[in-house]
């Protein structure tokens, strides 16, 4: 039924127009924006717009004691904070010439791999939500919470643990902790087939993700892509294996790769990595009880600790890719300079801008989540 005075309106043909995608938009990772130009619903130009999360970490760290910075670094990346603590600690240890006891190194691997599982579950949830599958988002977030429970037992903190400190770790594991990790791994292994049914092998998801945001290997290498996004283009590179740190050279694990380079390939690489993390954790659970000893090397008074002059560029493989800190000490009690190189500083800016071009507007969010871009690593 139309009103009597109804007059049909002639719509102009769809023109080019601009759209601010974010900073508050359910389809974008928090506090980040893309300014996109569209022709119809096809993106013709995309410009990343950061700065909404800038908290001046790098500047602030120059005014805090070496040990105080441990409270700051995990806050740089919310979904995957552990690699931040570890990479900072590795850098300070390199500068100060500290030997980390064996048990602490194994505890760090345990902590890192739990964090990788938590981060990947979170990403699966986020990615599923961008394709309209909210059940999987709830699953991902809920299962991540079980990992957070373990973090809480381990360190007292659920999201930010400040568990790794220069010289080792803050405390040993509570009683029965490894058994609980083992239980969680069993649970996750039982859950994976269910995730497959709902998400990874879901025709809706596969149709949406296949061919979205495709990167060739040449593009990936030239644009500075690292981590699972690089491995989804067929290049088998992982800092854990190719530039080993801690005790990763004593562990057996595969580096999963895919060749398609699209959103689907990236997600499948993460799924396979989750299985590899479970495999690593099982080895840690088997070997950790046999490794006794201190969990920290003797440290100078942290309130008056002058770290020797020098520079260090430690690297770790975070769940998102290559994470590095450049630390400079002038021999004082505070860093002279801390430069944070997060993997998302590439993925969320130049790579996302380039990959968005030519996709339809509804796939921009999916492209971003499939890159596992973490805006706080851009802003720092």
């Amino acid at each position, binding site marked *: 039924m139309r009103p009597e005075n109804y007059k049909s309106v002639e719509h102009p043909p769809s023109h080019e127009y601009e759209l601010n995608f974010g900073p508050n938009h359910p389809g974008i990772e928090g506090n980040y924006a893309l300014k996109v130009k569209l022709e119809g619903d096809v993106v013709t130009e995309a410009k*990343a*717009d*950061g*700065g909404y999360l*800038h908290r*001046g970490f*790098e*500047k*602030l760290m120059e*005014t805090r004691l070496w040990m105080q910075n441990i409270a700051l670094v995990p806050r740089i990346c919310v979904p995957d904070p552990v690699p931040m603590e570890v990479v900072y600690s590795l850098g300070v240890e390199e500068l100060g010439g500290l030997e980390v006891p064996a048990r602490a190194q194994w505890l760090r691997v345990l902590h890192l791999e739990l964090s990788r599982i938590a981060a990947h579950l979170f990403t699966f949830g986020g990615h599923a939500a961008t394709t309209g599958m909210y059940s999987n988002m709830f699953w991902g977030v809920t299962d991540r919470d079980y990992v957070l429970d373990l973090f809480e037992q381990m360190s007292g903190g659920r999201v930010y643990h400040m568990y790794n400190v220069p010289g080792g770790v803050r405390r040993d594991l509570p009683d029965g902790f490894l058994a609980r990790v083992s239980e969680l791994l069993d649970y996750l292994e039982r859950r994976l087939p269910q995730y497959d049914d709902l998400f990874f092998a879901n025709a809706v998801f596969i149709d949406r993700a296949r061919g979205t945001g495709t990167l060739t290997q040449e593009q990936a*290498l*030239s*644009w*500075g892509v*690292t981590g699972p996004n690089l491995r989804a283009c067929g*290049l088998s*590179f992982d800092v854990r294996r*190719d*530039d080993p740190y801690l005790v990763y050279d004593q562990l057996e694990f595969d580096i999963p790769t895919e060749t398609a380079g699209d959103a689907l390939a990236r997600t499948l690489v993460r799924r396979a990595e989750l299985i590899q993390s479970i495999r690593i954790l099982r080895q840690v659970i088997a070997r950790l009880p046999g490794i006794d000893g201190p969990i920290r090397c003797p440290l100078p008074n942290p309130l008056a600790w002058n770290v020797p002059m020098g*520079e260090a*560029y430690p*690297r770790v493989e975070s769940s998102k890719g*290559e994470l*590095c800190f*450049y630390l*400079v000490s002038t021999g004082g009690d505070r860093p*002279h*300079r801390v*430069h944070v*190189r997060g993997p998302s*500083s*590439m993925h969320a*800016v*130049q790579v996302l801008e380039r990959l968005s071009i030519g996709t339809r507007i509804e796939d921009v969010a999916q492209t971003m989540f499939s890159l596992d871009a973490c805006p706080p690593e*851009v*802003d720092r």
Partner: protein
Amino acid sequence: MSKEIKAVRLDEVLGEMEGAVMQRKRPGRIRVDIEADALPTLLQLLKGRAGYLHLSSISCVDWPEDEEFELVYHVWSYETGVLVSAHTRISKQSARYISVYDLYVPAGFFERDIYEMYGLYFEGSPHMEKFILTEWNGPPPMLKSFDTEEFVRDTFDWKEYNPDWLQEIVAKGGGIVE
């Protein structure tokens, strides 16, 4: 290509660069100190002939006593598993340098970051504009001469905070520990 051949190429490249001082810091980490005008050539040779395809990052360090910026280009070779950190110094007076965006696309992000945070301009870089600090008109904040605490003291007013509930606690003998 074997790791040995690539390693020889790295030595060759560094041997060709006059004035480049190489230092092996630990296995897989090499530091090179080089003059600013020779650094782009070094990177070109490292990428083109020694397989250093990945620019991991460009770090900038402010050295206020020397009136200089130090730029550190971290490049990584996937084939040999070696990270070369090329260090150079730029005078703060000119605060201008050359972009390596043509060589390494990731440089675009790092150069913009350094321009914003240190005020060091890269000629030929595609994005010499504000990205993070779009609403900031002050001096580049990462400079050592920029004192954040002083800025806060000058910009914001302190307010006395003495609510009723706190007065009640003080009356009972409690309060905020100074």
